[in-house]
């Protein structure tokens, strides 16, 4: 059974991204893999739309949501962006998006954090 705190976080992501499909998969360690489908980015990104994922740990919100992932091959202006790394997680090649800043659960939610990630990507 998924913990109510994590379920509330998933519900919050759905509220923050109306009109987008949001998938949520439980992992064996109690964490949840959340993906927002088909997020449009600004010009310069290739591809121009991504599925944005984050693993929400069982200790959320005491441990912050980080890092974020898109499918392998995401690039900015055809070149390297310091915040992007190619990684392989659980047998799948992905692009890791490393945007780390302190997370305050009193004023921030998971949905809000993912909106901020999208905003950063669109503002590049």
């Amino acid at each position, binding site marked *: *059974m998924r*913990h*109510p*705190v994590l379920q*509330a976080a998933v519900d919050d992501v759905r509220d923050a991204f109306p009109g987008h499909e949001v998938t949520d998969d439980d992992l*064996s*360690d*109690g*964490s949840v893999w959340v993906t927002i489908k088909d997020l449009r980015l600004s010009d310069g990104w290739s591809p121009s739309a991504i599925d944005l994922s984050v*693993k929400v*740990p*069982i*200790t959320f*919100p*005491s*441990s*912050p949501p*980080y*890092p974020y992932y898109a499918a392998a091959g995401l690039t900015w202006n055809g070149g390297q962006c310091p915040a992007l*790394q190619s*990684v*392989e*997680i*659980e047998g799948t090649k992905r692009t*890791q998006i*490393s945007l780390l800043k*302190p*997370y305050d*659960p*009193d004023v921030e939610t998971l949905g809000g954090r993912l909106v901020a990630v999208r905003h950063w990507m669109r503002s590049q």
Partner: protein
Amino acid sequence: VRWRAVIGSSDMQKLLRSLLRADFDEHAAFLFAGVSRGASTSRLLVREVWPVADGEFIASDRGAYRQVTPRAVVRAVRHAEETDTCVIWAHSHPGSGNHAGFSADDLASNARAHPMLMELTGDKPVGALVFGERAVAGEIWTPDAKPAPLELMRVLGPNLTDWRPTPNGDGLFDDRRARQILLFGEAGQVRLRELTVVIVGVGGGGSVLLQQLVHLGVGTIILIDHDRVSRSNLSRIVGATAADVGRLKVDVAYDHARRIDPDVKVVAIAGDITYVDDAMTVKDADFAFLATDTASARHAYDVVCHQYMIPGIQIGAKATPDADGDVEVHVMNRAVMLGEPCLHCANCIPADELRREQQTAEERRAQAYVDDPGVEEPSVITLNTVAAGMAVTEFMVVATGLAQEPSGHHAYYPLDHELRRRTVLRREKCQYCGTVNQLSSAARGDLWPLQLKPGASPGLSHTTSHAPWWRRLVDWCSRASRG
């Protein structure tokens, strides 16, 4: 199954103020509680107290003195449903002093009302309490058993205080502890004997905690640790010898405790409280010490202590060289008490450290973190001994009723010869120690899932308990034959 109730001292004061007034009349209140079910003892964990207004505790139409109005009952049931708690209703018998008990009318009223209340609250337990000035009696109804009497109500404050139907007259004089009884009396020694205390982590700090608790005469001690003794541990694990290298720390600690006093019951669990099943083995303890230094263990300890209302103390000793080559040394004691800020509020659980510990090795590598088991911080037995000695002293005064003030957080700086008290503020919306947040786990007990890794720690299921040597030998042979 014996039933107990646990309540914070501020809620208890609120309850007593509403029940035992100068008018010397009967008054009533509702309590809303989480539940912790145990094999031998179950506990009701009081989260909230609602005094019943005088206008809603009216003359009875069924022959009893007074009754709570149906409107007030419905409101309480609705609140219990919204907060996923069970309902306990309490009233007072002024003038009954230190002997409390239900009248025949009270018992008849319980028999009429409680089956309906259980049905309305989703088959959760329902309790009734009756208070004298210094005593409480209770009756707990559950769908699967006959009504059971409340054994005691524990008040968590600067001291652990037990309220019972009648004074506890059990005496115990053990001449091996005659000198300490001069400090806290026979009643204090009896109290220590009645308690179950958990030590999470029996390395350098935990082994000293254990040694002192056994000498004090604590009745039952549960040890939990999944680690094994290494050669570099021998400088600070009390009771460990070179022959113990490679053994589970809990087994070494168990043997040491048995040598000191075989009458103390010790349960040794090779486990990890960051997993739900392992954490559940400590949920019925009366007090818990934490003596490990990972963020995950601190998080788990904090969650379990507040969800199951277990007071405790986290100990730690740190000696950290800085960039200039100077060493910052301090010893920390942090009380985890109801109504006080939790370890999360005190910022004792670094978020990034906790996150890294939750990640797989593959994820850590992808984020360019270096897993270097060779990097070790200084660790010295004298620092562990100071931390453990302070913590067990705090426990002793709290358990035997000598404490004058809440414990709080303390840091000792040996290089400056200074002991400092640290002030910590509680976050109102804290998910672990607050009750304002709808998702708070505080005092919910079994009615809320533990927010820890599911299942048991992989490959660990070994338990050593208070068994004769020949039984342990048989167990050992059995394990050895299984490889």
